């Protein structure tokens, strides 16, 4: 827990421009996941556990 707090603090102290580059990487990762359909599959599996074996 302390390590997580330290990591967040360290990230928060980065210059804004650097933090925005990380935000862009997070956005691109989310877009890639959405485009691959993985997220939909995950949701479907959560709703219907039987789908996991399909």
């Amino acid at each position, binding site marked *: 827990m302390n390590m997580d707090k330290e990591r967040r603090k360290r990230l928060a102290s980065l210059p804004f421009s650097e*933090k925005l580059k990380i935000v862009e990487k997070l*956005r691109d990762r989310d877009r890639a996941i959405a485009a691959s359909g993985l997220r939909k599959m995950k949701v479907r599996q959560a709703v219907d556990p039987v789908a996991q074996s399909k």
Partner: protein
Amino acid sequence: MKATLEMINGMKNDGMIGIYAIGGAVGATFYLEPLATADVDIFVMLPTVPGSPLLSLAPIYDYLRARGCHTEGERIVVGDWPVQFLPAHSALEQEALAQAVETEVEDVRTWVLGAEHLVAIALETGRAKDYARIVQFLEQDAVDADKLNPILMRHGLAGKWEKFARKYLEE
């Protein structure tokens, strides 16, 4: 982000918009760790047209479309970011814009809403993700209570803050 902000600054220089400031998750990232988001919220003061009480975003969209931007639902993609322009309607939003913090992103001048105004706007908006963001601000000591309290009082949010604090901060 650089291209996005250059285009928005161009709009400001051309008189399409008045003062503006980044809000939402990107604005919060100025004060916190990087937060995942799909778009950029830009709070903006729109120039008023004499004789017309209506403020329209249509001229902004026309301006940006003429420069190669395209719409994506209620957002418009500027550079590589979907942008949502949010006209500052309420007294809180107008005050937040007037007191925005000037900064630079990759040598491009820009403005970000102050931490306390971001928290007050999140409280006013009141979705689960807004409350979660307020908790992040508090956990990271990124808000000054001496600045936040007068804002909450001025804009009638003290009661809402008490309810929020009871539900999310006293457990």
